[in-house]
């Protein structure tokens, strides 16, 4: 049994209605609980409209619990786009196959040029991204890991969903984390926004974190793309997924991101569900109250002003200086990008701001020595939840 079975037990519109019906008393009960005892029903209350007047209280608690667990530190990382070739047609993405943009797969020379530019920026944690295509499959990714592993402390992936055997190989080659965002847990919206290509298979994507856990991947990142359906229900399903992973694959760390839709090529006709900054803060704080240990990440999709204020409300890692187009660091051009970023400050500028706020920017919080030893144990640990 995988997460799809659990997910099928909850009907998206019914969940949305249940959250909408939460009362002030429900919110007070959730806020009164000890930090190890919040239930999924409490999470629903914290995500509800009834929680809006309690946002400051949620933010204070979220800040306090984050400092207790993670200290006054902020992990900095950068994305490295290896390719924008993609076989999917998705309504919200600049890489969508139907968009007539130049396609690129970085070769060795280009990858090393990007690596050199990132290292010069001080980056030690790098997230490797691609579109979904057999042309950037397992062999290409293994090759990229071999090129990059000597140069960085931590390499993670945000690539197409793959199989347990692929993840075991990546682990052996020095990859320690995989982010795989469901985009939407609403089956109707999923079908509406994923028109063609392998990504149209919702179930395969839903159970990708299971396969990561079975392969012993050390960190599993999940999340929804806010703006495709009812954000409150999306966030609740992320919480359901989080609890499931924590129970089944307890050796893996977890992280959550909160991407909101950004402008991109080909987005003219898109009808979006509104998701304001105030609501994003509500989601961030609700997750921190729900889990003191989950890592929460905030990307450059958000504005400098928002990030400068919101980072202390539960966030543990931030990207900085990001380019979302393959070759973007070495070439400094902005064509071919997946989405346009909002906070365009350099990593040094972001780090300097964090320091003025009494936070220590952390460039390295991993070591490649810890990677590559998972094969034997992982094989033993592969079992259904």
């Amino acid at each position: 049994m995988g997460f799809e079975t659990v997910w099928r037990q909850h009907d998206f519109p019914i969940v949305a209605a249940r959250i909408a019906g939460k009362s002030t008393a429900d919110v007070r009960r959730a806020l009164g609980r000890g930090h190890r005892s919040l239930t999924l029903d409490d999470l629903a209350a914290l995500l509800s409209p009834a929680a809006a007047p309690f946002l400051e209280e949620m933010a204070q608690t979220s800040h306090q619990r984050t400092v207790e667990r993670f200290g006054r530190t902020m992990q900095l990382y950068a994305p490295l786009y290896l390719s924008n070739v993609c076989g999917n047609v998705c309504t919200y993405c600049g890489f969508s196959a139907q968009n007539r943009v130049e396609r690129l797969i970085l070769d060795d020379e280009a990858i090393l040029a990007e690596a050199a530019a990132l290292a010069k920026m001080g980056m030690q944690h790098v997230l490797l991204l691609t579109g979904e295509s057999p042309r950037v499959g397992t062999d290409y990714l293994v090759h990229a890991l071999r090129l990059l592993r000597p140069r960085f402390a931590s390499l993670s992936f945000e690539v197409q969903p793959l199989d347990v055997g692929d993840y075991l190989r990546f682990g052996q080659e020095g990859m320690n984390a995989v982010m795989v965002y469901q985009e939407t847990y609403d089956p109707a919206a999923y079908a509406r926004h994923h028109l063609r290509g392998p990504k149209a298979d919702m179930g395969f994507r839903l159970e990708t974190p299971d396969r990561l856990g079975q392969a012993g991947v050390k960190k599993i990142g999940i999340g929804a793309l806010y703006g495709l359906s009812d954000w409150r229900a999306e966030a609740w399903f992320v919480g359901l997924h989080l609890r499931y992973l924590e129970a089944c694959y307890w050796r893996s760390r977890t992280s959550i991101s909160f991407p909101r839709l950004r402008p991109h090529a080909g987005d003219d006709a898109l009808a979006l569900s509104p998701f304001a900054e105030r609501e994003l803060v509500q989601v961030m704080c609700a997750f921190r109250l729900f889990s003191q240990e989950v890592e929460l990440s905030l990307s450059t999709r958000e504005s400098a002003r928002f990030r400068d204020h919101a980072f202390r409300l539960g966030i543990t890692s931030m990207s900085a200086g990001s380019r979302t187009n393959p070759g973007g660091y070495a070439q400094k051009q902005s064509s071919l990008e997946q989405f346009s970023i909002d906070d365009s400050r350099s990593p040094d500028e972001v780090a300097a701001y964090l320091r003025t706020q009494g936070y220590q920017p952390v460039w390295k919080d991993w070591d490649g020595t810890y990677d590559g030893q998972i094969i034997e144990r992982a094989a033993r640990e592969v079992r259904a939840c």
Partner: protein
Amino acid sequence: MKATPLTIAGVELHSRLFLGTGKFGSGPLMRDSLAASGTQLVTVALRRVRTDGAADDLLAHLEPERYRLLPNTSGVRDRHEAILAAELAREALQTNWLKLEIHPDPKYLMPDPIETLAATEQLAKRGFVVLPYVHADPVLCRQLAEAGAAAVMPLGAPIGSNQGLASRAFLEIILAQRQVPVVIDAGLGAPSHAAAAMEMGADAVLVNTAIATAADPVAMARAFALAVEAGRQGYLAGLPSRTEEARASSPLTAFLEQGQEA
């Protein structure tokens, strides 16, 4: 009573307060807190420092002549990863001292006793001075000492929890039967917790979260230093035993002292 230094693997330590270096808001704040604590032994997470010889912002704020470094293996999940990390730490930080932490559970960071015992045995054979972080398990602590641990570091409470000596009953047994120094680690959230640990007879305590996340870390470091000193002095002075109720001098045996009845 004269205070004697703590000796671990032949090294004398005059401060019985060990500090962690994580969670501080800045390098200078960490440096000043360490100085205020009077500590001589500080843990450094291997994962946080550059092991390739590049400039490192954490190490830059640690004065090498002042502190002995105790690299920790935070992040490893089993004996194999622990041994690789230990070898790298010895190479990169030029010390064979090691705080062995193996927690396969990243949520509560609970130490794995089976892997820790196995790794301790292997690392001791490789010449490491091993200080394993473990549950407050008296049998395990005995086994670790036999396996070559230079000291044991049982937890007072879940790491970072500030709950104090939640494991007190088991710590008392560990202290009573100690074969190597006992450093109480994790969960000490207030100077009074540290003082209580030292009054129980702990050889030292290790503190990080309570100092690093205090509103004023430097002042809190000083407070912990005073508490550790007070607790140690109290232990050495010989605490009177406690009793739950007032006790008359000899109600049951006084008759023995009285003259025989005629």
